[in-house]
């Protein structure tokens, strides 16, 4: 026997009631151009992250198309080596730093996490907005560099000594290093916001054991970001010091070490790919549950797997350095760790299969993308197992085999779930349904094109074609496969065009989505689409893992929060007991101004050390403006009372 329709909170939120209108007034964000820069609501910032990241995805895709066009013919002259080096470096840097993390972690996280927690806004909303502006600043610095012939040309991982002062004259590699600083500070900011929201702003009753898998994943990734980003900031910071100040961290002639850079970079670089993949896996867990019409099988194993992946992800970085001649014993350790990390990922796969097997699959559009994920990521993961073993890696490292592998895991593990998530939460974000037919065309065109291009690259790698070559000789017998790989680009481009048409069209004339068009269990489906500025009419409580499926009709809500100031509820990190009330700071221009001053200081420091003392006072001034005390709210905060009736 099936359970009744999804349960909504007590008062139906039609937006008409007095309470709704008061809340709307309190929580509304200002309008106009000035208001746009003052906005601190997580739904708006989340959509900005996603839209901006998608724009950079398209730009990165254009660069990829240029690469494929250049490689269609041996000794092709479409691009010379200098332009080609800039293009592939920009492609990798854009996709990883300006698209994958901002979309998967920052975009989806910032939008969905507070809604899933039952909170009215994200924790530290101004830090959240600041992170967005800083990300945009970094993106503009990088692409501004490309447009002024200062685009980095040393590869997305910018190994020294090639990226050092002796072999990379000018400021190209400095632009790259500072872009890292921008985007990593941005990611750290969002990590702090998300971790705090998940730990302290959950709805009462949402113990850790009842947290949706997506919240678990965002928590784990936030902590991974906090540990991993500093490593790359150190790597790029030391590189900047070597280049601009004249230090010798990476200069072997003066006691430095070129491998130090690789260790620092990959200590970040490997967790980075889990920072990109785990959000995708969490989206898949959410969607598999929803579209199998049953609670996910193996909640605890999946949560343990997510946490384990986060941990083990920090212990495998040397598998990017197997060719450097490290001792065999240490290489074996990293082979073992790299194979071990397959176990938690495999666990998630098996649990998904089990959920589908014993469920009732309703194959809607988002679920189609999940099935695509299964196929693509599985291939990528299996080629990764091949790469984990040192002898095989010593042959295929730095060839197109690795390129094929990581595109399968990144596109399969992030892009397919991204599209799944976009189609899934599109009704919530816009209030309208995306067109399913166009969505299916998008899927099949993209899926076919992707496999044509990237499956072929496995063979190119086996045949010995190295990475990052702007051309190749006619006697290498690589042309045929390169032509085949390049032809897939047409399908992928067509698929993306269909997607854009779908989005632009559906936003205006798509079917009106109700609160919960998919019948999912999460709290984000309990309010209207798009959510009102106050998110929830009443802050909810939960009594199970799948609130909208399991909570009884008389599930209590939180009362006692004022509706004339922006009051939020802070709960205990483990069992979500209400602890005290807090006040959301509301819209503010200071995050934007701070991002401007920080950006100016960062960019200026590339060109002159005077940027640091000259740039610091404006930063301090804007931070003072940001942190200026607001005085007590009229009613003192109360603790220890029960807020649930």
């Amino acid at each position, binding site marked *: 026997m099936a359970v009744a329709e999804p349960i909504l909170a007590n008062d139906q939120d039609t937006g008409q009631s007095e309470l709704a209108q008061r809340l709307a007034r309190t929580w509304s964000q200002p309008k106009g151009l000035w208001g746009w820069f003052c906005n601190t609501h997580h739904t708006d910032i989340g959509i900005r992250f996603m839209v901006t990241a998608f724009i950079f995805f398209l730009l990165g895709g254009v660069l990829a198309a240029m690469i494929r066009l250049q490689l269609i013919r041996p000794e092709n002259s479409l691009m010379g080596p200098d332009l080609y080096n800039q293009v592939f470096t920009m492609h990798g840097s854009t996709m990883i730093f300006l698209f994958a993390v901002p979309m998967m972690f920052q975009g989806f996280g910032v939008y969905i996490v507070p809604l899933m927690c039952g909170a009215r806004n994200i924790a530290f909303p101004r830090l959240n907005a600041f992170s967005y502006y800083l990300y945009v600043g970094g993106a503009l610095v990088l692409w501004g560099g490309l447009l002024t012939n200062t685009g980095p040309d040393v590869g997305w991982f910018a190994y020294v000594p090639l990226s050092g002062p002796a072999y990379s004259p000018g400021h190209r590699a400095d632009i790259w290093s500072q872009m890292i600083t921008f985007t990593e500070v941005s990611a750290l900011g969002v990590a702090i916001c998300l971790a705090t929201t998940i730990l302290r702003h959950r709805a009462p009753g949402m113990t850790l054991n009842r947290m949706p898998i997506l919240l678990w994943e965002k928590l784990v990734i936030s902590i991974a970001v906090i540990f991993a980003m500093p490593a790359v900031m150190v790597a790029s910071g030391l590189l900047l010091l070597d280049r601009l100040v004249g230090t010798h961290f990476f200069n072997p002639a003066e006691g430095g070490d070129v491998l130090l850079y690789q260790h620092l970079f990959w200590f970040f670089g490997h967790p980075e790919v889990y920072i990109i993949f785990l959000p995708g896996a969490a989206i898949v867990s959410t969607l598999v549950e929803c579209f199998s019409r049953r609670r996910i099988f193996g909640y605890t194993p999946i949560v343990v797997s997510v946490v384990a992946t986060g941990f083990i992800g920090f212990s495998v970085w040397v598998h990017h350095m197997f060719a450097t001649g490290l001792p065999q014993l240490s290489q074996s350790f990293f082979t073992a760790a790299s194979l071990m990390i397959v176990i938690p990922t495999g666990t998630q796969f098996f649990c998904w299969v089990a959920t589908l097997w014993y469920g*009732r699959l309703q*194959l809607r559009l988002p679920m189609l993308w999940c099935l695509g994920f299964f196929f693509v990521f599985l291939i990528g993961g299996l080629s990764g197992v091949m790469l984990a073993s040192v002898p095989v890696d010593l042959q295929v490292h730095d060839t197109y085999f690795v390129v094929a592998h990581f595109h399968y895991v990144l596109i399969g593990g992030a892009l397919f779930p991204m599209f799944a998530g976009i189609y899934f939460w599109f009704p919530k974000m816009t209030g309208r349904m995306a067109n399913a037919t166009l969505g299916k065309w998008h899927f099949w065109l993209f899926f076919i094109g992707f496999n044509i291009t990237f499956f072929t690259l496995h063979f190119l790698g086996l045949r010995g074609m190295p990475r990052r070559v702007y051309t190749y000789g006619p006697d290498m017998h690589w042309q045929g496969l390169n032509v085949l790989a390049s032809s897939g680009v047409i399908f992928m481009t067509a698929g993306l065009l269909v997607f854009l048409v779908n989005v632009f069209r559906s936003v205006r004339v798509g079917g009106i989505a109700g609160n919960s068009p998919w019948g999912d269990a999460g709290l984000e489906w309990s309010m209207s689409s798009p959510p009102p500025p106050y998110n929830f009419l009443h802050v909810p409580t939960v009594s199970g893992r799948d609130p909208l499926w399991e909570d009884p009709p008389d599930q209590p809500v939180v009362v006692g929060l004022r509706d004339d100031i922006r009051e939020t509820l802070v709960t205990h990190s483990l069992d979500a007991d209400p602890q005290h009330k807090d006040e959301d700071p509301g819209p503010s221009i200071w995050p934007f101004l701070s991002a401007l001053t920080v950006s100016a200081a960062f960019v200026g420091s590339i060109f002159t050390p005077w940027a640091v003392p000259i740039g610091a006072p404006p930063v301090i001034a804007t931070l003072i403006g940001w942190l200026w005390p607001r005085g007590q709210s009229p009613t003192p905060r109360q603790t220890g009372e029960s807020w649930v009736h």
Partner: protein
Amino acid sequence: MNATRSLIAASLAQAMPLDPGRHHMLHAAAPQAGHIEWLYWITFWILFAVFVLMIGAFVRASAKTHVEAIHPLPILEKDEKADRRAGWGVGAALAVTVITLFVILVLSVITGKRVEGLTSQNPVTIQITGHQWWWEITYPNPKADQTVTTANEIHVPVGTPVVVLTNSKDVIHSFWAPNITGKRDLLPGYSSAFWFQIDRAGIYHGQCAEFCGLQHAHMGFSIIAESSDAFQAWQQEQLKTASEPSTSETIRGREVFLTHACLMCHTIRGTDAGSRVGPDLTHVASRNMIAAETLPNTAGALAGWVVDPQRIKPGTQMSPNPLAPDDLQAVVAYLQSLH
């Protein structure tokens, strides 16, 4: 054991036809690459089986799909029995996964030991130094006058262990001959050693496999495996100073070489040219290709390279040399006489 392994490898390889080709890691010409190829195929088939099983599971799991229901279907009730069966299934799959991974780990470590296990009291020692964008090859010898120096073309005797010592003059490069063995990065400030042995005579190609700047794509090399006698003869030839030019054209060519930009970067032992910036040209005519395996070693290619290397390898360190046509003809003839 070896025979069985190569039989398995060969029959597995037959199952997936591949074009023969140089630079193909699955066309091993040396035991090292052979061990790796064996491991590759075993791993591939194991993982292929995993792939088939997993896809089968997904297909079966999604077989009963309700495709076009527009409204959300009702939620399924909690089913203890199904969950228990699922538990056993997941547990079994996990156990198989752990075992499979362990098997792959053991095979990988064994293969690694086999590949690294080559050693010898009397190897041929080669010092390879990476430059942007060519390979400096030296056969070190305690006696300085027995040290062979050449560029981009390595000769080794068949059946003898070879140890390569790596270094780099500028950025990180990577020495990779796919038919022979796995790659090894050339790191400035580090010297590491790796071994290989070629049992079949032939010419094997390699290419730089770590991005090293503008002409990373055109930084190739070749390994010529020949009989011991041929190798000794080659070494003796390489040790000699440059052959004296005998025709008027080659004499003029040497004159041009020594009075133009050439001697600023290149060495021709036996002449006044002694610079170490570019490759040693004392026996350049004995090499099959020039410009780091980019061009064949013919008069036309050589002339084009000398006049405008930037056209063929933009960004390379060698400058254009707009010589007068007669001078160009002469210098090319001279270089072609340097066997």
